[in-house]
């Protein structure tokens, strides 16, 4: 784990760490936490490294690289025996309760903990406590090393290079872990623009040298590279969604800046020219004046025949509700990528949450058909983002792709995505030839409810859309019979989705199918649940895990078949009310027996999920367990 003040390069360090490990054949899972702040408040990342695939975070920290004193006091209790803490040698005298960026609630907790453990007032005293718990402390004179770097670079002004404290901690960390420096260098080259690569490599070298000389073999952990032949990628959820959209044919993306969605749009804009097999294509990214314009201009682009999407999080989606209704009423295949974060209102703007499922299902007045997909990991983000456009156009309805902050900002190693052979299904979009000699009716009644769709501008077709109830031509109609038929036409398309989309695309099942215990969940807790039930399996506790991927229309019959007769049904999600559990109860009549919920704004870790599930399996849990891990 590495942490420091926001703006101190924590983000860059996270990527360099992760990539350097990836280059060495290790599997990486990275979690990012940051405040809604530009500079100064605490942020950190937590990487889990292994020789086999890792799916989630754990609570334990083996090595903490602290850019500043706050990082130490924030995380010292997470560092396990035999672990290490890299710390600024000059900050030992800092009176920790006087660190100005500590919020009052945390200061009070810290004070209480210090009194209880009889810890003195300085950072040194806190580190003494760590040492007592068999944690090694590695003081590094960051500024002295930087001064040296400055000398080498002929830059006497230290302020210009203090940002490189992040690279120093990287150097010291990897030196302690006795890791191949060449791989770290490669990650640095991949991260920074050419003109600052050299200075960072000099900083890396000096940090390595210092640590090797000063700490020798004091740290017991070792990181070894592994030879791998397969191609792998290390990426975030934001990046996976962006690539998935491109694959799925998205050619217009609209957005209004919001955390944690905006990174996706910026990434797309940076790649606006797309390579294809024959010729270049492009994605036009439009930064609109608000989310209202974002959804409605995306819908407009869809009407003109482009595949279009918008990306947002809760506050933005709230503004989109009316536009979503228009899209539902006019059967517009618009895709909305919805990154949930801590809510309501501004809530926890940079933190995680999964409390918007019910909102996504019901946003907009009245009743209309929509599809809701929920990805459970970064790889699913990629494929679901692409698939969303096929579903939207085939069934002519808005698709909401639910993701959460944990996935957006986590990064993970995967074998390179195989995307060849991904089919574009436009649901029979009519061409001018198809339309010759007929009088086109955009909302023609059909058996399935799906009317032949043509884009605005197609020769031989003139069409009307309206947010009012309308007749087959798209003109306003308030007639009762027409209303009934139109409602039924739109709504029955959901039956078709239910029937045509295979169950395996709507849900995943892991673990023991015959077990009488089953966890149900959706979204980012997936990885922690899979790892936990594997660990519990080894201890003789059998659990299955039903991960829901299509939440609307919920494949109720298939869910029912899985959950029928289970003794324990454990609903696990990152919200207060157990929204999925409630929906399953409503649609299947089967109620969860236990709830494991988290609403601290931090993602679930394997450790805490394992603990909660074990408590349930051993009868030591209450009906509702609330998870708390993560600072």
């Amino acid at each position, binding site marked *: 784990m590495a942490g420091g003040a926001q703006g101190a390069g924590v983000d860059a360090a996270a990527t360099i760490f992760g*990539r350097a490990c*990836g*280059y060495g054949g290790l599997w990486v899972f990275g979690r990012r936490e940051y405040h809604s702040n530009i500079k100064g408040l605490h942020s950190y990342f937590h990487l889990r490294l292994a020789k086999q695939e890792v799916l989630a975070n754990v609570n334990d920290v083996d090595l903490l690289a602290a850019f500043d004193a706050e990082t130490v006091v924030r995380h010292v209790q997470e560092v396990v025996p035999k672990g290490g803490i890299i710390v600024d040698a000059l900050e030992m005298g800092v009176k920790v309760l006087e660190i100005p960026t500590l919020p009052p609630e945390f200061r009070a907790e810290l004070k209480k903990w210090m009194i209880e453990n009889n810890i003195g007032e300085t950072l040194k005293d806190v580190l003494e406590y760590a040492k007592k718990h068999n944690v090694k402390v590695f003081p590094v004179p960051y500024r002295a090393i930087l001064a040296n770097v400055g000398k080498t670079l002929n830059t006497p002004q230290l302020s210009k290079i203090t940002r490189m404290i992040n690279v120093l901690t990287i150097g010291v960390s990897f030196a302690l872990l006795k890791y191949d420096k060449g791989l770290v260098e490669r990650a640095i080259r991949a991260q920074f623009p050419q003109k600052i690569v050299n200075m960072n490599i000099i900083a890396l070298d000096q940090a390595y040298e210092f640590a090797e000389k000063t700490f020798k073999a004091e740290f017991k952990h070792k990181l070894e590279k592994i030879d791998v032949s397969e*191609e*792998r*990628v290390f*990426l975030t959820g934001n990046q996976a969604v*962006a690539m998935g959209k*491109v*694959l799925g*044919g998205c050619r*217009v993306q*609209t957005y209004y800046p919001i955390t944690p969605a905006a990174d996706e749009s910026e990434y797309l804009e940076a790649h606006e020219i*797309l*390579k*294809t*097999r024959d*010729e*270049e*294509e*492009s*994605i*036009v990214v439009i930064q609109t*004046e608000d989310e*209202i*314009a*974002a959804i*409605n*201009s*995306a*819908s*407009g*682009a*869809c*009407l*003109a025949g*482009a595949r*279009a999407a918008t990306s947002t999080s809760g506050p933005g989606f709230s503004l989109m509700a*009316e*536009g979503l209704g*228009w899209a539902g009423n006019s059967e517009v295949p618009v895709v909305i990528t919805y990154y949930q974060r801590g809510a309501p209102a501004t809530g926890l703007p940079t933190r995680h949450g999964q409390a918007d499922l019910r909102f996504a299902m019901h946003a907009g007045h009245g009743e209309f058909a929509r599809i809701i997909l929920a990805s459970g990991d970064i790889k699913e983000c990629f494929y679901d983002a692409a698939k969303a456009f096929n579903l939207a156009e085939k069934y002519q309805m808005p698709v909401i792709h639910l993701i959460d902050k944990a996935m957006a900002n986590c990064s993970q190693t995967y074998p*390179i*995505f195989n*995307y060849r052979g991904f*089919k*574009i*299904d*436009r649901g029979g979009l009519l061409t001018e030839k198809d339309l010759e000699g007929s009088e086109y009716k955009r909302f023609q009644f059909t058996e399935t409810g799906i009317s032949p769709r043509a884009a*605005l*501008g197609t020769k031989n077709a*003139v*069409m*009307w*859309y*309206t*947010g*009012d109830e309308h007749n087959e031509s*798209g*003109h*306003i109609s308030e007639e009762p019979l027409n209303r009934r038929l139109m409602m039924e036409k739109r709504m029955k398309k959901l039956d078709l989705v239910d029937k045509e989309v295979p169950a395996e695309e709507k849900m995943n099942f892991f673990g023991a199918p015959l077990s009488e215990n089953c966890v149900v969940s959706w979204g980012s807790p997936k990885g922690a649940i899979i790892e936990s039930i594997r660990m519990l399996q080894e201890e003789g506790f059998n659990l299955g895990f039903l991960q829901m991927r299509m939440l609307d229309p919920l494949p109720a019959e298939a869910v029912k078949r899985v959950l029928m007769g289970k003794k324990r049904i454990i609903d696990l999600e990152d919200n207060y009310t157990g929204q999925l559990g409630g929906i399953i109860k409503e649609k299947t009549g089967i109620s969860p027996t236990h709830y494991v919920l988290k609403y601290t704004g931090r993602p679930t870790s394997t450790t805490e999920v394992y603990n909660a599930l074990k408590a349930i399996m051993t009868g030591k849990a209450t009906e509702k367990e609330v998870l708390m891990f993560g600072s």
Partner: protein
Amino acid sequence: MVAKPSDYRVSDVYADWCPGCGDFGIMNALQMAFAELELEPHRVVMVSGIGCSGKEPHNVKANGVHTLHGRTLPFAMGIKIANPQLEVLAIGGDGDGLGIGAGHFVNTGRRNLDMTYIIHNNGVYGLTKGQAAPTLKRDLQTKSLPRPNINEAVNAIGLAIISGYTFVARSYAYDVKHLKDVIKMAIQHKGLAFVECLQPCPTYNDINTKDWYAGEDRKDADGKPQSRLYKLEEMGFDPEVRDWKDDFSKKMIALEKAQEWGDQIPIGVFYKKEYETTYEDRLTARIPFYPTRPPAKQKLGDEESNSSVDLSEFLDSLKTS
């Protein structure tokens, strides 16, 4: 193709505006303009908002997209960007564009998309029974207001000029020929054109009536009504910016003209600047094939519907092997 206005009539829709509504005049002017420009109905998209004006597209045979209250411009923008080959006209009411949709009014100006925006300005929210629209002057009390209007009026022409619209004009719903000519110029203008169309609301605006505009209350010595409207073009007003260095002064003169109201209301073109880059030009500078292969015209899949996109540029930068 030689077109007649009647080619743009819709046979199976009853235009349900009140008798004497200015919307009929606007409808006629649109149909005439389309005919004179020989626009093919499938290439035209009329995007409207909510209110009486929102029904305009249902009465014109060309593609119509009747959207949400205030959201006319975002829909129009999405359509135009996805397929710049379409002739897009956004049509909305005064409340739609200057009240609930004012943010879009301003921000669309910043983009200078090559499309036309026509606002119906009758000073009231007709369809909800005559509340004050953002264009109703302060202290006026139209028929259904319980108290006189307490808000200042938005100056639509002025707002358009300072928001970046590159063609700004005003016309009058009952002068169909003038309105038709202005709409034609707006459509032909390269860039974002704004037309404020003054219109009486015979049911709810009992102040700015047809007679008021015609000056029936102020007859000259011969008993001839003195119209409150006068045409800028007849006064030799030159709205066009022909050189960058004149842009500022042309804007200032147009803004000055935009202040006139009461007994002297100018109609015609206030401001016109054609050599400003459009949003489409700006996109083309980044994406050279944008005009011929815009988002709506891309193939997406090969003959077998396989996605034809090559993600290697994305993936290569994320590779760890």
